[in-house]
C-alpha cells in the first residue's frame, strides 16, 4: 500500500467518526488520569450509558495537560462542540450522563470549556482559558485529541506526511531543513539538532544507529511520558526522518521501566507501523529500510547521559565514558550513533510536516520553537504545558499555573531537575529560554518546573537534590563520587543544626571542584542546586548556621512544637493522637508537650481543631509555655 492509499483510508475513518450520529466521549487515560481515578469514571460511564440505553463511542486518549483537573472527560454530541468536564467523581459522571446525554442540559456549572465549532451558552472556549491561551502545542499537538493506539488517527491529523515528503528529498536537504528550523536538543543541553545530525551523517561507515532517549530521569518531569502515552507516532515519525537523513538502518528507544503504559503504547505503535509498511525493508516503497527496537531501562538516573545509555543498551553497567570520541563518530558497538530525546523527535516530525520557517517563527532569536514543561509543586493548576521559548516565567506560574495556592507567597522555581537550579522571585520577569536560564545559574533542562512557596526550606531543597545525585552517581570518577557525598554531609550538618561558619565557603569551593572535575554532566551539574540556593537564598543558609533557625519551619532538628496556653481548651485530642506519648494534660487542662519526648512529627498540629488552633510550630525562638498542665483559663 502506498502512503496516499493509507492516508485516504485514515481520512475516511476519521471523518466517519467526526460526522457520526453517535455521541463521542473522550476520556484521558494516561498515567496521570488513571492515578486520579479515570478507571472508575470509565466504569461508571459505561454503566450509565448502558442503563440509559445510550449508544456512544468511548475513546481513550492521552493527557491534554490539564492534570489538575483529572479525571477529565470530553463529550462531543453530534453537531455540538465538545464539552470538557474535569475533577470528575463517579457521581458527577452519572449526573452528566443523565442531564446532558439523555436530556440537553450541558451543565455549565460543571463544564471546564468547549472545543470545536459552535458555542454553548455559559461555557467558555477551552483554549481561551488562562491555562491554555498562552500555550502553543507542537510536540503535544495530538495529545488528548487522538486515540494513541490507532495509527489512522495520527495519519488523519497530518501524521507521516513529513516522512512521505522526506523520502523524496536528499538526506542533506532534510538535515538543512532541521538546521533552518533552529531546533535545539530538548533533553537538556540544547545542542543544535541539525548540527548533531550533520556530524553523524558525515561520519564514515555503512552501519549507523539512531537512539531515542526516553530515560526521563529528572524527578519532577514527565513531558516525555505524556508524549509517548498520548502520541507515540509523533516520536516514531521523527525517528524515521532522522534515520533517513543520517543513513541509519537501525534504531533503539531506550525507555525507563517506570513507564509501563508508555512502553505498551510504543509496542502497539510499532506493530501498526509494520502493518502499514512504515518499518522494515522497503518503507513506503522508497527503498529506505529501518528497524526499531525497544530497550527497557533498569533504573539508573545516569543512563540519561548518552555514553552511559549506550553502555546500557550494550548490556553493561551504565557508566559514562569520556568524550571524544563523540557518539556521532563512535557510539553503539563503535558505530556512528545519533541520540535525541523524545521531545526533540516529536518536534522533528512537526517541522517536516509544516516547514522550518513555520517552526522558527516561534520562540526567540537563539531559542526557536516551543518547550514543554511539567508544571508542578505549589501552584494552583499543575499540568503539562507547552509554551513558546522566551515567555516570561511570571506568565507560566501566574497565568497558566494560576499562582500559588492557599494565599501563600512564591519563593522559588526549580528548573532542570537535579542538574538545574532554584530561581528566586527576581527571575519572574525574565524570559524562559536557554540563554536566560543559564545566565541565572540554572538550565532549561528536560522541562521539570517545580514551584515552591514559603513553606519550602531552600537549604533542605539543596540537601534533597544532593541526596538524589549522590545516590545516583555511578561512582566512576572521584570528583562526583566523593564530592557529592561531602557536599551532602555538609548540608546534613546544616539542616540538623550542626553547621559551621565556614560551611558556605567550603560548599562553594567543593561545588567548583565537582563541576570542573567530573567526567559527565551528572557530576558537572550536580552542584547547581547548591550554587543557586546559596546565590539567591544565602540568608536561609546563614539562619540555619548561625541562629540554628529554619525560617520555613521545615528542618526537623531546628523546629519545635508547643501548645499556646491561652488557646488550649483541654479537649485532649492531641494527647490521644501523639504517637510518642509526649503530651501531658487532662480534662479541661492546658496540655503541655514534653520537649525531650517529642519526635516532631506534627501530628498534634494536624489534629488540633481549627477553632482552637492551639499548637504552634516554631524555630529559633524561645518559647514561653507552662511546663506542667494547668486548668484551662487559669492563665488569663
Amino acid at each position, binding site marked *: 500500500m502506498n502512503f496516499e492509499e493509507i492516508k485516504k483510508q485514515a481520512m475516511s475513518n476519521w471523518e466517519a467518526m467526526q460526522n457520526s450520529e453517535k455521541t463521542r466521549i473522550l476520556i484521558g487515560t494516561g498515567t496521570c488520569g488513571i*492515578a486520579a481515578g479515570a478507571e472508575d469514571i470509565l466504569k461508571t460511564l459505561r454503566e450509565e450509558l448502558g442503563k440509559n440505553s445510550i449508544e456512544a463511542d468511548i475513546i481513550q486518549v492521552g493527557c491534554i495537560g490539564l492534570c489538575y483537573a483529572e479525571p477529565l472527560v470530553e463529550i462531543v454530541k453530534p453537531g455540538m462542540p465538545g464539552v470538557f468536564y474535569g475533577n470528575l467523581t463517579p457521581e458527577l459522571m452519572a449526573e452528566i450522563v443523565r442531564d446532558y446525554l439523555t436530556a440537553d442540559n450541558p451543565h455549565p456549572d460543571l463544564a471546564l470549556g468547549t472545543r470545536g465549532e459552535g458555542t454553548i451558552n455559559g461555557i467558555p472556549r477551552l483554549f481561551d482559558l488562562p491555562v491554555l491561551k498562552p500555550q502553543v502545542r507542537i510536540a503535544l499537538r495530538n495529545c488528548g485529541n487522538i486515540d494513541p493506539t490507532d495509527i489512522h488517527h495520527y495519519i488523519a491529523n497530518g501524521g507521516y506526511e513529513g516522512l512521505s515528503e522526506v523520502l523524496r528529498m536528499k538526506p542533506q536537504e532534510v538535515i538543512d531543513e532541521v538546521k533552518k528550523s533552529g531546533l535545539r536538543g530538548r533533553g537538556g543541553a540544547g545542542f543544535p539538532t541539525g548540527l548533531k545530525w550533520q556530524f553523524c551523517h558525515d561520519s564514515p561507515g555503512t552501519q549507523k544507529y539512531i537512539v531515542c532517549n526516553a530515560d526521563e530521569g529528572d*524527578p519532577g518531569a*514527565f513531558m516525555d511520558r505524556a508524549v509517548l502515552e498520548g502520541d507515540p507516532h509523533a516520536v516514531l515519525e521523527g525517528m524515521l526522518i532522522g534515520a533517513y537523513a543520517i543513513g541509519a538502518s537501525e534504531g533503539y528507544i531506550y525507555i525507563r521501566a517506570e513507564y*509501563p503504559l508508555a512502553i505498551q503504547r510504543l509496542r502497539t505503535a510499532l506493530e501498526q507501523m509494520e502493518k502499514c509498511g512504515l518499518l522494515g525493508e522497503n518503507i513506503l516503497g522508497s527503498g529506505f529500510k529501518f528497524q526499531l527496537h525497544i530497550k527497557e531501562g*533498569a*533504573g539508573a538516573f545516569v543512563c540519561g547521559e548518552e555514553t552511559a545509555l549506550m553502555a546500557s543498551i550494550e548490556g*553493561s553497567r551504565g*557508566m559514562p565514558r569520556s568524550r571524544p570520541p563523540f557518539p556521532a563518530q563512535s557510539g553503539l558497538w563503535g558505530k556512528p550513533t545519533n541520540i535525541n530525546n523524545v521531545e526533540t523527535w516529536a518536534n522533528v516530525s512537526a517541522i517536516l510536516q509544516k516547514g522550518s520557517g513555520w517552526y522558527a517563527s516561534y520562540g526567540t532569536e537563539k531559542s526557536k520553537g516551543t518547550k514543554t514543561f511539567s508544571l508542578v509543586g505549589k501552584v494552583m493548576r*499543575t499540568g503539562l504545558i507547552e509554551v513558546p521559548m522566551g515567555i516570561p516565567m511570571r506568565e507560566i506560574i501566574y497565568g497558566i499555573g494560576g499562582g500559588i495556592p492557599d494565599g501563600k507567597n512564591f519563593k522559588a522555581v526549580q528548573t532542570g531537575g537535579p542538574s538545574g537550579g532554584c530561581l528566586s522571585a527576581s527571575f519572574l520577569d525574565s524570559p524562559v529560554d536557554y540563554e536566560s536560564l543559564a545566565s541565572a545559574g540554572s538550565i532549561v533542562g528536560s522541562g521539570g518546573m517545580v*514551584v515552591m512557596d514559603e513553606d519550602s526550606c531552600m537549604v533542605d531543597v539543596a540537601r534533597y537534590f544532593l541526596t538524589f545525585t549522590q545516590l545516583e552517581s555511578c561512582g566512576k570518577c572521584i570528583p562526583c563520587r566523593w564530592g557529592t557525598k561531602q557536599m551532602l554531609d555538609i548540608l546534613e550538618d546544616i539542616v540538623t543544626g550542626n553547621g559551621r561558619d565556614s560551611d558556605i565557603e567550603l560548599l562553594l569551593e567543593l561545588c567548583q571542584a565537582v563541576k570542573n572535575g567530573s567526567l559527565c554532566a551528572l557530576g558537572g551539574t550536580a552542584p547547581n542546586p547548591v550554587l543557586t540556593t546559596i546565590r539567591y537564598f544565602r540568608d536561609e543558609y546563614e539562619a540555619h548556621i548561625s541562629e540554628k533557625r529554619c525560617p520555613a519551619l521545615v528542618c526537623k532538628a531546628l523546629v519545635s512544637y508547643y501548645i499556646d496556653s491561652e488557646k488550649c481548651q483541654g479537649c485532649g485530642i492531641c494527647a490521644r493522637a501523639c504517637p510518642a506519648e509526649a503530651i501531658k494534660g487532662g480534662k479541661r487542662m492546658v496540655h503541655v508537650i514534653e520537649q525531650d519526648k517529642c519526635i516532631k512529627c506534627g501530628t498534634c498540629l494536624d489534629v488540633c481543631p481549627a477553632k482552637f488552633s492551639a499548637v504552634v510550630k516554631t524555630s529559633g525562638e524561645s518559647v514561653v509555655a507552662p511546663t506542667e498542665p494547668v486548668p484551662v483559663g487559669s492563665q488569663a
Partner: protein
Amino acid sequence: MSIAEVTQNTHTVVQKDEETVTTRVDEILASYTGGKAELIPILQQVQQAFGYLPEEAMSRIAQFVDVPECTVFGVATFYAQFKLVPTGRNIIKVCRGTGCYVKGASRILEETEKILGIKDGETTPDLEYTLETVACFGSCALAPVMVVNDKVCGRMTTDKVKKILDRKDQH
C-alpha cells in the same frame, strides 16, 4: 479501601530449590540467542518470574551470555530495578521525586513505614510487603504519589495511606 480494592496484581513469592530455578531460567533463556546485549532483558524477565534474582539463576545466565559471573553480578547491582533477595507479595513504592517532595512525600513515607513496621528497602517477615522509594513516577501533577504493585495512587494523604494499607482488611 484496601490493597485488594486498589489492585489484584500481586507478585508471586517464589523460594524454590535449585533445580526448579534452573528449569524455569532455561525456559526463559530459550527465547534468547546469547548475545551480551540481551543480559539486561534476560535479568528483567528472570526477576519478573521469581520476584528477585536467585544466585543460581545468575550463574546460569552468565554461562548463557558467556560472560564471567562477576559481570552479571556487576550489572545486577548497578541498576535499582534488580533485587538479590526475595521481595514481598505486595510492593509499595513511595515516590521521592521533587514534585512529591514539595507536597510532603516524606510524611507519606513515614506513615507507610509506621504502618508496615519496616523501613525503605525492607520486606515484612511474612513476605507480604516490600517498601521501596522511587526517584520519580512522572505523575508529579498528582503529587504526592504512591504506587501499590502496578497501580499509581495520586494525591495521597496520610489518611489514604492508612486506608490502603489497613492490614485488618486483608485476611
